């Protein structure tokens, strides 16, 4: 178990290193001089040169990468161009908002997707199955920013049930939660569809298995068979899917944060791109990469906890 965990952490570190390399190449190849952007159009050539020197832009490429790489592992992602604050601090300030949004999105998708998928599988071929099937495809097909805008218009502007913008009053948990409902729905609704379809498909497969026939032959109640004997296995591919899906939710979060004017890393990176604030872009992408890799590791550990066969191979 421990050796498995260490192996997986090593792999995660390798993935993050590759991501760092790609990120560095991308930033390096983008035209435009961060020093000129930072100083504005009225800066003199000397000022630009001084800043380039300070940011290390005059050094050889490999040295620049090495400094970036070592700095990143020690938590130093450089300073922001505009205010000069450390990038790590800026991103970590915003991260909890996005994390809350993602967790909210996962909660929506799991809370709705799993029961719907189960229901569709158990009543296969019925009208319920068809309605769930059509709705799933519909919510998968509609981009999350469209859902975000309509959710905002209907529930916040027209019905006035829920607040429209912001993340709620700091320290007031209830207020923060009500501010979370709509944006997290926008992030998670598409995933309700994915998960419902996934759960339906794997439930149908598991329900055909011979151990389910054994359970029926012992006269176990349908409810026990569906939820304890079948769903506990059918849920496993869904957990893996969610692990991968977090990446997509992170990009949905950008739209949700812009539409609902919420703070968060999505909003941060969007503003940073518009202002060519490259250290922020790099830092945000890197930290979300780490987040993604860690959440995937968590998904694998959850599967281990749910499936004794996987656990014993750890």
């Amino acid at each position, binding site marked *: 178990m421990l050796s498995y965990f260490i192996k997986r952490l090593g792999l995660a570190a390798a993935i993050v290193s590759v991501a760092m390399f790609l990120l560095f190449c991308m930033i390096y190849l983008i035209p435009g001089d961060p020093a000129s952007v930072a100083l504005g159009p009225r800066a003199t050539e000397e000022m630009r040169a001084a800043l380039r020197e300070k940011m290390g832009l005059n050094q050889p490429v490999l040295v620049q990468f090495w400094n970036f790489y070592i700095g990143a592992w020690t938590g130093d992602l450089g300073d922001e161009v505009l205010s000069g604050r450390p990038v790590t601090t800026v991103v970590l300030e915003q991260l909890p908002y996005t994390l809350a949004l993602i967790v909210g999105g996962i909660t929506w998708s799991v809370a709705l997707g799993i029961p719907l998928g189960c229901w569709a599988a158990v009543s296969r071929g019925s009208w319920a199955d068809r309605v769930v099937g059509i709705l799933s495809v519909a919510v998968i097909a509609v981009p999350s920013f469209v859902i975000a805008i309509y959710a905002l218009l209907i529930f916040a502007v027209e019905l006035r049930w829920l607040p429209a913008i912001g993340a709620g009053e700091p320290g007031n948990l209830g207020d923060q939660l009500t501010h979370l409902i709509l944006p997290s729905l926008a992030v998670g609704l598409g995933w309700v569809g994915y998960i419902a379809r996934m759960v339906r498909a794997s439930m149908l497969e598991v329900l055909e*298995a*011979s*151990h389910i*026939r*054994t*359970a*029926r*032959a*012992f*006269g*176990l*109640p349908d409810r*026990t068979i569906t939820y*304890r*004997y079948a769903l*506990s*296995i059918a849920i496993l591919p869904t957990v893996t899917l969610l692990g991968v899906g977090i990446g997509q939710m992170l990009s949905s979060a950008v739209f949700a944060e812009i539409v609902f004017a919420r703070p968060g890393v999505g909003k941060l990176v969007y503003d940073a791109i518009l202002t060519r604030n490259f250290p922020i872009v790099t830092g945000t992408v890197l930290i979300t990469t780490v987040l993604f890799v860690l959440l995937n590791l968590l998904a694998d550990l959850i599967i281990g906890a*749910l*499936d*004794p*066969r996987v656990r*014993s191979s750890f």
Partner: protein
Amino acid sequence: MTTLRIDNLNVTFSTEAGPLHALKNVSFDVPENRIVGIVGESGCGKSTLINAILGLLADNGSVDGGSILFEGQDELTTLPPSRMRDLRGPRIATVFQDPMGALNPVISVGKQMLNIQYRSPLSKEEKLNRAVEMLELVRIPDARAALVRYPHQFSGGMKQRIAIAMALMMEPALLIADEPTTALDATLEVTTIELLKDLQQKIGCSVMFISHHLGVIAELCDDVVVMYAGEVVERGTVRQIFQDPRHPYTARLLECDPARQSERTRNLPTIPGEIPDLRARPTGCIFANRCDRVSDACSAPPPDKDIGGGHIARCFVADTPAETGVTA
């Protein structure tokens, strides 16, 4: 008393190419405390028969005609699903063919054995003790520790013994064993058969033992039912069937058993031809197209001829003993 009496049972599946008559006029009894072997090649309707008895036919399958009478009082073909569920497990327990997949992979053995006792008024501790007792009976080493283990931590033979322990723990009146030893290797097969016979006598239940292994049937069973293409072509005691087969199919089937070959041969005998398409059953004898004693009479449905002593064969020429074929 007869534990199970099947009378003129018919089962049809609706398929895209029309109705498939999977069981046709199937009749036989499973008397109390006896082991009845059901034998036949793949696709002869053995599994359909089990599913019909358990009320677990696929959605496109239905019983249309005939009766399955359990313990002289419950007509299984018309029993409401909830009553049927109450019989499955406590009264009719089943051991399936595939020991690898028969147990739930993510639930511990102890938990599974606890779950199937959900109707019992015993306390959790007593139920677990009962599970341990049964596991010891099927010779699972360190039975108490086995409770917290998962199916993948046991070998195939052990899994099958656990499945048998689970079935017999219910103390059923009827145990249905669907090829329980087919997936096991020869040595395990023998021990499993011996164990099954031993436990059957201890618990005193009737057994319906499905197999295509004639040696196992001869060893274990009291009575034999020979099935071919969804029909019972011959039934009787083990002695009657093995010593004096009256249906040409039974005779050919016995010839094909490698264990019966008296001398070394390169060519094992086979029955030429194939099972007819069950969507278009012939009006006459179902075996006519492969039979070496076929005559013009066989184009009419053959009668169930009573040879005496409960020995019945569905064939026109059943009155005369089948020729013991030439052993190649």
